[in-house]
């Protein structure tokens, strides 16, 4: 690989911006806690990580470096946040998972940067899917979602996300392979995708973890839309209406047929049950109000004493200590990951599907977390990618960031023009 000369902002300059942002945050931490050993430890670790990350990225150079830079920035910020909640204590575990996520990003990038090879590996992705489904079904507790290994707990459904995105992505060649059954022409891969979606829905229903279902549904919906319309000059209005009506029908049916524990969440008035089912959201909203625009200062929050303050309601925890402005900016920064694809568009159909799947996953996940904790939609236990604490979430998000990087900096040398003419594009 060679360095790009097409990027308007140079790689070193972006890394300097990362250093500047982290330094500014660490200065604010210093203002809150003073120049203590813990502050110095946190500062050294974050800034050294930035340097090391920058050096690594020099060796893993690519045509566009936005994803890597944003990832480096977000992971550093996340480490600072998690280390300061309720008092300064370096979040070692979170930091390690952050490094792991960064590495996973590079690994997954290498795996899928070549769309032809990634498409060829599709049987492997289906195999992973089967293994993960089996793990959820057989290894988690009674209708649970966690595998407890004693020293660590793993949430296999988190790893299902990147695998599902890989299944969602498809090449044009695959779409051209149609089969016939009693006069009905269909693409086998599309049927497989629908089948996998149904399996996930069924399993989540079984595991009583319907909170993540919208993220999978969004990725599947985007993938199907992209597949059904790939050859059309224009997307038919009739098709859009039919699909829209289908989505509304499914949503209404889901709303009506949702199990009682979901119905409870859909109809909870948190202000009439402030110490019961509305406890977390009431505390989360109050914390945002207490934080105001600019927060109470790093480490001065009290929301940290509430369960899931570092995961499901982390947006409120950041708002309380750093202010709503910073919390919003952090969310926008995470959005830069999928948004990077708008400036350097994918150059293969396969990568387009991959990028759209990740974008849908990230955005729906953030929507569920932020708007749920703020009581605008039912509250579900999902995480904000890279910001919330949780190893499984961090690693799976890292893998998906690698997909975005692959879409931004692909390697398209696997097939010759002649092969492409013969077998269709990627």
């Amino acid at each position, binding site marked *: 690989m060679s360095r790009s000369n097409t990027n308007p902002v140079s790689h070193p300059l972006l890394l300097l911006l990362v250093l500047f942002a982290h330094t500014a945050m660490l200065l604010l931490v210093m203002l809150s806690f003073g120049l203590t050993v813990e502050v110095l430890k946190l500062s050294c670790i974050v800034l050294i990580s930035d340097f090391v990350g920058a050096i690594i990225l020099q060796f893993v150079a690519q045509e566009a470096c936005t994803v890597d830079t944003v990832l480096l920035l977000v992971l550093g910020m996340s480490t600072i946040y998690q280390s300061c909640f309720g008092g300064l204590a370096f979040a070692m575990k979170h930091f390690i998972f952050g490094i792991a996520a960064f590495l996973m990003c590079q690994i997954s990038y290498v795996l899928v940067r070549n769309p032809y090879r990634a498409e060829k590996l599709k049987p492997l992705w289906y195999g992973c899917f089967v293994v993960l489904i089996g793990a959820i079904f057989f290894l988690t507790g009674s209708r649970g979602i966690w595998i407890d290994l004693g020293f660590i707990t793993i949430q296999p459904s988190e790893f299902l996300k990147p695998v599902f995105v890989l299944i969602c992505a498809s090449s044009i060649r695959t779409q051209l392979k149609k089969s016939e059954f009693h006069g009905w022409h269909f693409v086998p891969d599309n049927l497989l995708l629908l089948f996998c979606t149904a399996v996930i829905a069924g399993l989540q229903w079984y595991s009583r973890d319907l909170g993540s279902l919208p993220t999978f549904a969004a990725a599947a919906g985007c993938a199907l839309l992209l597949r059904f319309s790939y050859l059309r000059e224009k997307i038919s209005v009739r098709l859009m209406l039919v699909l829209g009506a289908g989505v509304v029908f499914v949503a209404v049916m889901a709303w009506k047929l949702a199990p009682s524990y979901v119905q409870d969440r859909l109809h909870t008035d948190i202000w009439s049950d*402030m110490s019961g089912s509305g406890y977390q959201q009431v505390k989360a909203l109050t914390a945002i109000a207490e934080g105001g625009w600019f927060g109470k200062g790093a480490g001065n929050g009290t929301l940290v004493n509430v369960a899931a303050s570092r995961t499901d309601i982390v947006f409120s925890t950041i708002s309380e200590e750093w202010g709503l402005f910073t919390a919003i900016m952090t969310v926008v920064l995470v959005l830069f990951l999928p948004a990077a694809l708008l400036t350097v568009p994918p150059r293969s159909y396969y990568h387009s599907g991959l990028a759209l799947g990740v974008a849908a996953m990230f955005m729906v996940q953030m929507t569920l977390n932020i708007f749920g904790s703020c009581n605008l939609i039912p509250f579900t236990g999902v995480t904000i990618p890279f910001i919330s604490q949780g190893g499984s979430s961090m690693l799976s998000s890292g893998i998906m960031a690698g997909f975005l990087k692959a879409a931004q900096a692909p390697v398209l040398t696997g097939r*010759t023009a002649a092969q492409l003419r013969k077998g269709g594009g990627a």
Partner: protein
Amino acid sequence: MPRIYPQEQQPRVIHVPPLDVSAPRSMRRAGKGTALLLAAFLVALVYLVYVLVTRSAFYMAKSGQTGYGKVTDRKGDVLFDGTKPMSEYEAGHFADVGNLIGDTSGQMSNTVVTKNIELLANYSFLYGKNSGTVTLQTTISHKATRACYNALGKKNGTAVAYNWKTGEMLVCMSKPCVDPALGYDNIESMPSGSLLCKAFSPTVPGSTQKVSTLIAAYEQNGVDAVNAMQFSCSGSWVNATGGKINCHNPYGHGTQSLNEAFANSCNPFFAQLVQSSQLPLSAVIETYTQMGYSVNGQKVAPLTMNGLTIPAASTTLTDSTEFETQWGCLGQGKTLVSPYQLMLWQGAIANASGSAVQPYILASHTDIENRVTQLGTTTRTPQLFTRAAAQGVHDVEVDNAKKHYSGSLGAYTCGVKSGTAQIRMDGKEFENSLLTGFCLDEDCPVAFCVVIEERTGADISNAQFAKVLLDALRSEEITKKPAAQTTPAQGN
């Protein structure tokens, strides 16, 4: 002309194999999809910020994380103080407004404080909590409220009044009333109803209901035709199904015109009107429904005023020849109307339009930065009844007041209708005295309803009670708008 690069400056050519012709559009669609998702998320994020910033005072107030400011009357007299113990005020200062204004103890739910708690939080999203004191000014006249409270003496009752031209709520008094300054240690021994503002509670309206029945008759037959009707009363009347309707005058009123029957509050006259073929029951139900009644269990949304909720009037009307239906149209039996709603209808009659000006109780809000927001605006209710019916009842009520209440109401130009509600509660039977009406004087444009519970002949009359109310309001110069409190409100 093709540009020629020196060898070392030639642009590097990235090897990109040619793609399928359909691919670029499909790939652009992925980009558009991502952009659409991003745009939708950002719009939602903006909405989230708006909600959080505008509702944060509510979050702080509800969770008790901040101090509270003050509620004042239209002249700045403090009605609730969250900045210091209310026991520091003169004894009994809040005793007449406790169940209307309320406090933050959580003992009462339908009060000005509990329903507008976010406006009382000493908080702003920019400056944080307790960085100043907010003031919520009401349109209430504490002086007039206290005058009404005192006028009742040992009796219990309700007085509710508003400016039918502007919508400002002026008096909303309900006795017995809790005194928040005394706390709730003796809650068990408090008189029943102390924690409830009965102006908002439906009660048996007595003959004030005849106003609604008359409106139905006017709407069905026209004002002139109804005014020309005559029915006779011999002290009682037996309806088509054998039910006996008694008149309060056992000797009867003889043959009367509508004006006479209205003034006499003659039950047999109105019972015959309800049974007559000229007033089908369907027409009565239609008019009542339009006025806001829940007829025969029909679901009707409650009335609201700055968050306060007032249950809608209700009645049961099944057969116009049966006693229960006729009794309901006379304001007894199962018919229930709140004094607030009776007052509201009088507002629509006073302006002779059939649509009332919507009452409001919050005048302005002064935030912790001393910025004043006017909260009260003059709006109208939907058409409750026709303009012609409103004018007809207006004239009948004014005639009634002129002929029968000029002595007790003094020089006020009023229109009124009295009522006596027969109550049976906890095995005890008693009568409540009501007077509902309006004043047309320029300096006292007031629609009102007063109730004296278990009134006996020795007690203050409903008209005298109404006069106390009007006198107090006139002296308060109620036509002047409340001046917003930008400086700390003064208590006693």
